[in-house]
């Protein structure tokens, strides 16, 4: 009997259940998706060619963050489930059902919901992982080849993690339901507004919050060498600062607006502000967490994307796009496919002791070289002509630079001679062609092919290949693609989970808000006015942590100056992606909230 009642209950709340269930499925999919890259040995080994300990640390860090956010998310999803069902179960208890039996019911309901969602999530996760991976690989031009969407280990760990989480959730729900007096289960909690009249203390807290944030942000800008101080200090001050700011600064602000009667006494603004005042207090913890996670998520994407700037870095150090020393048809054919911008060839003869170059060729076409220097703390390069006089002097920059462009195992001394003398010399006749192409990114695969071919033809070419621009480019690209990929995955995972956490938190309170909206409607508030109030209220709850999170990221990126040349480069890309996703969640939350709050069995539907 009681089973049937329980099932009917689910049927009645089917819409809310769908929201919960799809939220859980999405969380699962994301968790699985991240796990598939994080613990994918083939992918890490082949697509992220960098020191493995660093990568493992980064992914490990990512997994820890993901576990934390998933846990927070599940706690809120779980309390949403309880808030949804407690009225029904309270009713059965009032009708005489044993509380132990009700406890078992909610336990099973939570666990079964969880396990079903996990299974669905993993299966859909295969699809999502495939699609997202392909999308990212195509769109970003990443060279990710060893990525497979189905990974047994990831399936297993996702299952274990979520089953455990739901087991705890189920126990918690059961305990809570059994221990709460029936009467408070039946009455939707009409929690009175938090009424602290201690404005003095409040303002101290508000100022402390802002000061702590300022200290935290300042710390982030300290020189990177102080990293051991920066991280703990920034962590503590920013967390505490965000908490205090939400706890008092924003409520002080709302209190101030409420007192400005010419502002608050318009339409139902006073109600919207009252709701927020009440909410922000109740939401302090979650808003703090969300602002921080928001920062981490946004930071992950920004930093991930930023690794692509390393590609430019890699190509900036070498002036010529490639060096050709072979006249084989394979090389010369490939060369024809290039879009050459400039080409210069130097001829030389090699005997046992020396390399003889024609001096005239250097004066008509000086060899260019990119020299490294430091400009405003960041590495930079300038192009110079190698001094002809230095070319033959061993140990000079010019001599070294030229040597690195020549294929030879042991560097022989260089001699510059006149055209006539050169003609009379004996020796092996050779040449070196230095060229630049119109678009390096476009031609780089051909360049690489030409260089590999020459390497195959002669081992001596290894010397030239060492400073190959195309080779360096490929290396950095592999390395940065992996990070971009991870940054995106992590960022998406975080954002969707934290936005859904906020969504569930807001929806959990919706049931008790219903009566307030009903009252306003009865007093003669137009439906459109109520809708606007909801939009504003939820909008502010979304925007506040968003703003704080963005500020956190803007300051936090400074920490990456050390290994990223321009951490603020192309900042609009991650921000745009984030804003779109975030706005989407906001709109969904508003719609769902309206459905719960503005729907009434007898009255409101007739008002439409």
């Amino acid at each position, binding site marked *: 009997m009681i089973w049937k009642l329980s099932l009917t209950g689910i049927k009645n709340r089917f819409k809310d259940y769908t929201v919960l269930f799809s939220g859980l499925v999405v969380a699962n999919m994301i968790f699985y998706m991240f796990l598939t890259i994080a613990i994918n040995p083939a992918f890490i080994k082949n697509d992220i060619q960098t020191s493995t300990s660093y990568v493992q640390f980064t992914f490990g860090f990512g997994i820890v963050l993901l576990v934390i956010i998933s846990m927070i998310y599940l706690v809120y999803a779980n309390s949403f489930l309880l808030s949804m069902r407690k009225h029904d179960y309270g009713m059965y208890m009032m009708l005489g059902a044993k509380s132990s039996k009700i406890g078992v019911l909610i336990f099973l309901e939570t666990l079964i919901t969880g396990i079903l969602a996990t299974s669905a999530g993993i299966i859909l996760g295969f699809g999502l992982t495939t699609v997202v991976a392909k999308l990212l690989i195509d769109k970003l031009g990443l060279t990710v080849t060893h990525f497979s969407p189905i990974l047994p280990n990831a399936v297993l760990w996702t299952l274990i993690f979520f089953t455990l989480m739901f087991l705890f959730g189920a126990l918690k729900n059961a305990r809570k339901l059994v221990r709460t007096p029936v009467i408070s289960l039946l009455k939707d909690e*009409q*929690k*009175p*507004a938090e*009424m602290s009249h201690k404005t003095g203390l409040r303002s101290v807290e508000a100022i402390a919050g802002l000061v702590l944030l300022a200290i935290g942000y300042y710390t982030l800008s300290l020189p990177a060498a102080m990293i051991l101080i920066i991280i703990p200090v920034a962590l503590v001050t920013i967390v505490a600062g965000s908490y205090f700011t939400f706890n008092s600064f924003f409520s002080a602000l709302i209190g101030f607006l*409420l007192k400005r*009667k*010419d502002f*608050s*006494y*318009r*339409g*139902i*603004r*006073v*109600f919207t502000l*009252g*709701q927020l*005042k*009440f909410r922000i207090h109740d939401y302090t913890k979650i808003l703090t967490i969300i602002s921080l996670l928001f920062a981490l998520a946004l930071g992950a994407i920004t930093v991930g994307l930023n690794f692509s700037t390393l590609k430019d870095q890699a190509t900036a150090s070498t002036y010529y796009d490639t060096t050709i020393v072979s006249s084989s048809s394979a090389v010369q054919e490939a060369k024809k496919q290039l879009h050459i911008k400039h080409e210069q060839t130097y001829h030389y003869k090699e005997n046992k002791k020396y390399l003889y170059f024609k001096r005239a060729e250097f004066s008509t076409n000086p060899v260019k070289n990119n020299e490294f220097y430091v400009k405003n703390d960041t590495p930079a390069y300038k192009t110079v002509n190698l001094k002809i006089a230095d070319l033959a002097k061993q140990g000079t920059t010019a001599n070294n630079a030229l040597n690195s462009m020549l294929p030879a195992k042991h560097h022989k001394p260089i001699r510059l001679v006149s055209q006539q003398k050169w003609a009379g010399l004996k020796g092996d006749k050779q040449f070196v062609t230095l060229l630049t192409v119109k678009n390096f990114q476009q031609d780089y695969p051909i360049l690489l092919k030409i260089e590999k071919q020459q390497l195959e033809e002669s081992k001596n070419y290894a010397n030239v290949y060492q400073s190959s621009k195309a080779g360096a480019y490929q290396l950095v690209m592999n390395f940065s693609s992996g990070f971009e990929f991870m940054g995106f995955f992590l960022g998406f995972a975080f954002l969707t989970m934290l936005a859904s956490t906020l969504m569930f938190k807001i929806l959990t309170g919706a049931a008790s808000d219903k*009566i*307030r909206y009903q*009252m*306003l*409607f*009865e*007093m*003669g*508030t*137009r*439906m*459109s*006015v109520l809708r606007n109030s909801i939009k504003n209220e939820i909008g502010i709850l979304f925007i506040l942590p968003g703003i704080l999170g963005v500020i956190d990221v803007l300051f936090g990126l400074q920490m990456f100056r050390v290994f990223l040349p321009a951490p603020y480069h192309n900042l609009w890309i991650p921000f745009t992606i984030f804003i779109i996703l975030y706005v989407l969640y906001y709109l969904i939350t508003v719609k769902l909230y309206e459905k719960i709050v503005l729907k009434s069995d*007898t*009255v409101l539907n*007739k*008002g*439409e």
Partner: protein
Amino acid sequence: MTEILRVEQVTKTYGKRGEKQYQALKGINFTVNSGEYVAIMGASGSGKTTLLNILSTLDKPTSGHVFINHEDNSTLNANQLADFRSKQIGFIFQDFNLLENLTNRENIALPLSLRGISTKRIDPLIDRIAGRLGIEQILAKYPAEVSGGQKQRVAAARALVHEPAILLADEPTGALDSKSARELLDTMEDLNQNDGITTLMVTHDPFAASFASRILFIKDGKIGKQMLKNELSRQEFYHLLIDHLDTDE
């Protein structure tokens, strides 16, 4: 005497066509004049709340018409109905009258700000009605910080601050102890007699009803009898009412 409310042939049937239907109101007719204090009495399930919801435009009658200030409710669209309520009607209900996340002052301000009254005029209007109801001291508090009786006075202040054409009350004393109930009823009577507030109260409590100048009895969805207080004192009216209810059972 000017007519404030006219109810013509109002019926209400619950349940969709084809499903099981229940006729809660079966042709209600009555009028209320300006300055009257009318109580509607009836047993549980007789249709009191149904009627009040229709009068307050929260629900639509299945057939028939309701005129408030000679305006026919049924011709209005959703927005006009909302505006109509915010202008013409003041409510007091049994509970859930106040928004707990607003101070009492802010609660009372709502009907005024809703109607777009200039922000400067709002506080003086609140202070005036608060003085009238003796709640000046608790305006800065939240509803949860005051007693049930005080809450209902705040609700009354909110219902009246915008000077509606009619005050509608559904069991306003239902959740109060007898002392607070008495105080609220005295206040409502005072407002009616000295400020001319037209009042329509729904109740099943004879004591509450005895404060009215006229009582309509609703039974099985129809208005049966009506009783007039005329020159009787409240006590005499109350005893008459009790006798009437006894013989009626």
